[in-house]
């Protein structure tokens, strides 16, 4: 193995380890217990399937025959966060059960036998593994399609950005769905490269598995259809056959959810499917504006994370690329956007989590381009957005007053200086490139500092 390759592998391993440690640090503290009852409900469903072979979970959606109110004091929730009893329904059909089987099954293996003993400390452990694995998949997807540097940038961003890290700890269907979604994109990329049918079938299977985490996983099927449709192949018949194969296989997996519903109670299953389709459209007409400008973790709690905004800016910049590769940047994102807008529902942060890996990949691609072209102006502005928000998330406004003079004078000088260098073409040198890498690294270090200090105390103090 060449030394260069060895260094590349070591760097990926270090970043993966860093991603894991950041996700692991205070994982059972933040998001604090009770932030989302879904975390428990998914696990209750899995646990009841393992213990009683019957899905029992918390819902409250209209259409269930069995409604039971119970005070279940998992994680001491009734003393710190949840007022009133949970509404338990069975058989529970709010979502497909795959994530519940993972977290509830893991909990069962760890000795949990009743809902009251379900703890975040246990059920979030598989999520940490899945989240870290997602970082590796972001790298692989980026590496296959765009090369090492964009992939490593995307991996670094996705591995350390506050919203990705803290969000990935939560037991939410979206966090499970991201894994097969990324796998399906990796496999379809390999299929385009070497035309082996095995990759297409694996991609279709993964898209199907994404649906079994959450029905919005259908975005993975849409992505694959879009990618095949826009692929380089000129053989239309072959494209149609590929799409047909994809739909048949992925919908076989979807049919498992319907068979599951038929097995337990078809009437209730139909009711819940209907209830879900008529849910309150909480994301509202300003959904796209909020998607770009807000970084919600839950319903009402935001984490300051400028990487999301930068990601969307990069998406807009990448829309201008007239290259075949652009489809790998845009199609997965647009597919999930279509499903996000169509499914609507309440304005919870976790519905936006599947955008994050694709935003990171867009950042990786665009940052690499900025570095290669030494585009100081765009690079500096993006860097300042990231560094500014990073500082404000770790230093409160009163403390910041000590540095305000430096900021007041330093920033305009930096911006004007960069503009002058840009117009005089003096910025096209290696120092500019190193300066941009320096800004990027500062942004990453600020992520790490924020996450290192982010615990239950800072959560309740709301200092971010």
């Amino acid at each position, binding site marked *: 193995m060449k030394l260069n390759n060895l260094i590349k592998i070591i760097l990926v391993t270090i970043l993966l380890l860093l991603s894991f440690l950041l996700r692991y640090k205070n994982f059972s503290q933040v998001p604090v217990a009770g932030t989302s009852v879904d975390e428990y409900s998914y696990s209750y469903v899995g646990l009841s399937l393992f213990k009683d072979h019957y899905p029992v979970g918390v819902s409250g959606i209209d259409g269930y025959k069995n409604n039971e109110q119970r005070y279940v004091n998992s994680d001491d929730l009734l003393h710190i966060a*949840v007022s009133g009893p949970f509404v338990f329904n069975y058989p529970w059909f709010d979502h497909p059960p795959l994530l519940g089987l993972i977290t509830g099954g893991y909990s069962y293996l760890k000795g949990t036998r*009743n809902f009251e003993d379900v703890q975040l400390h246990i059920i979030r452990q598989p999520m940490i593994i899945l989240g870290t694995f997602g970082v590796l998949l972001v790298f692989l997807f980026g590496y296959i399609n765009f090369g090492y540097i964009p992939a490593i940038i995307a991996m670094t961003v996705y591995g350390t950005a506050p919203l990705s890290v803290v969000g990935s700890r939560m037991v939410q269907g979206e966090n499970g769905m991201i894994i097969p979604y990324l796998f399906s994109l990796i496999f379809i990329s390999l299929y385009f490269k070497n035309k082996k049918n095995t990759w297409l079938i694996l991609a279709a299977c993964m898209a199907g598995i994404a649906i079994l985490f959450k029905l919005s996983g259908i975005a993975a099927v849409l992505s694959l259809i879009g990618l095949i449709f826009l692929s380089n192949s000129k053989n239309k018949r072959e494209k149609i056959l590929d799409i047909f194969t994809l739909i048949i296989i992925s919908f076989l997996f979807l049919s498992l959810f319907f068979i599951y519903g038929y097995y337990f109670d078809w009437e209730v299953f139909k009711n819940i499917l209907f209830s879900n389709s008529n849910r309150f459209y909480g994301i509202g007409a300003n959904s796209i504006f909020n998607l770009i400008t807000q970084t919600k973790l839950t319903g009402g709690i935001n984490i300051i994370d400028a990487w999301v905004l930068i990601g969307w800016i990069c998406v807009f910049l990448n829309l201008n690329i007239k290259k075949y590769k652009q489809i790998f940047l845009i199609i997965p994102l647009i597919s999930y956007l279509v499903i996000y807008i169509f499914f609507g529902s309440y304005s919870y942060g976790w519905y936006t989590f599947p955008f994050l890996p694709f935003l990171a990949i867009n950042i990786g691609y665009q940052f690499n381009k900025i570095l290669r072209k030494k585009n100081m102006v765009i690079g500096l502005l993006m860097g300042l957005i990231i560094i500014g928000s990073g500082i404000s998330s770790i230093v409160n406004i009163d403390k910041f007053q000590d540095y305000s003079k430096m900021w007041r004078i330093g920033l305009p000088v930096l911006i004007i200086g960069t503009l002058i260098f840009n117009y005089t073409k003096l910025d096209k040198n290696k120092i500019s490139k190193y300066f941009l890498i320096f800004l990027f690294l500062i942004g990453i270090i600020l992520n790490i500092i924020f996450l290192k200090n982010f615990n239950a105390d800072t959560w309740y103090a709301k200092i971010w």
Partner: protein
Amino acid sequence: MKSRIRFLFIFVVIFYLLVFIGWIIANKKFINRKEYVSNEELFFEKHIKNDACTKTIYGEPLRAGNNLIRINFYCDKNRSSKNILSLNIFQNKNVASVIEEICRINNFKLEDNFKCYFEGKIINNFKQEVISGKTIDCLSPNIKISDIYKDEIK
């Protein structure tokens, strides 16, 4: 093209064959799903401690409306646990059920020397019905009911 269609056909057949086998096994091995009723064992486990005043239930039950009961424990002059429970969860809406449930949630066994009062009157019959919006007070031997309601008495 033909080989792809043939492959898909075999894939679908094997897939549903496996599902069918799974269905048969589930039907034979698992409980009668048509008659499933939830059970206490699935929800709770008993944790028993002796201190009634270590924990307090958070907030007011959201969906209960006025169908709730206040239940307070006074361990000494400085230590108490004040709780509000939804009455929707009870089949038997009596004092014993309410006390049993709060003991389970707050993980303690109520000691025998505690005296309980319903709306300020001592409870002799724990099977007596509770009334929505009212209060049960349970006091350790160190506390008198007049200590709690002294402001109201004044």
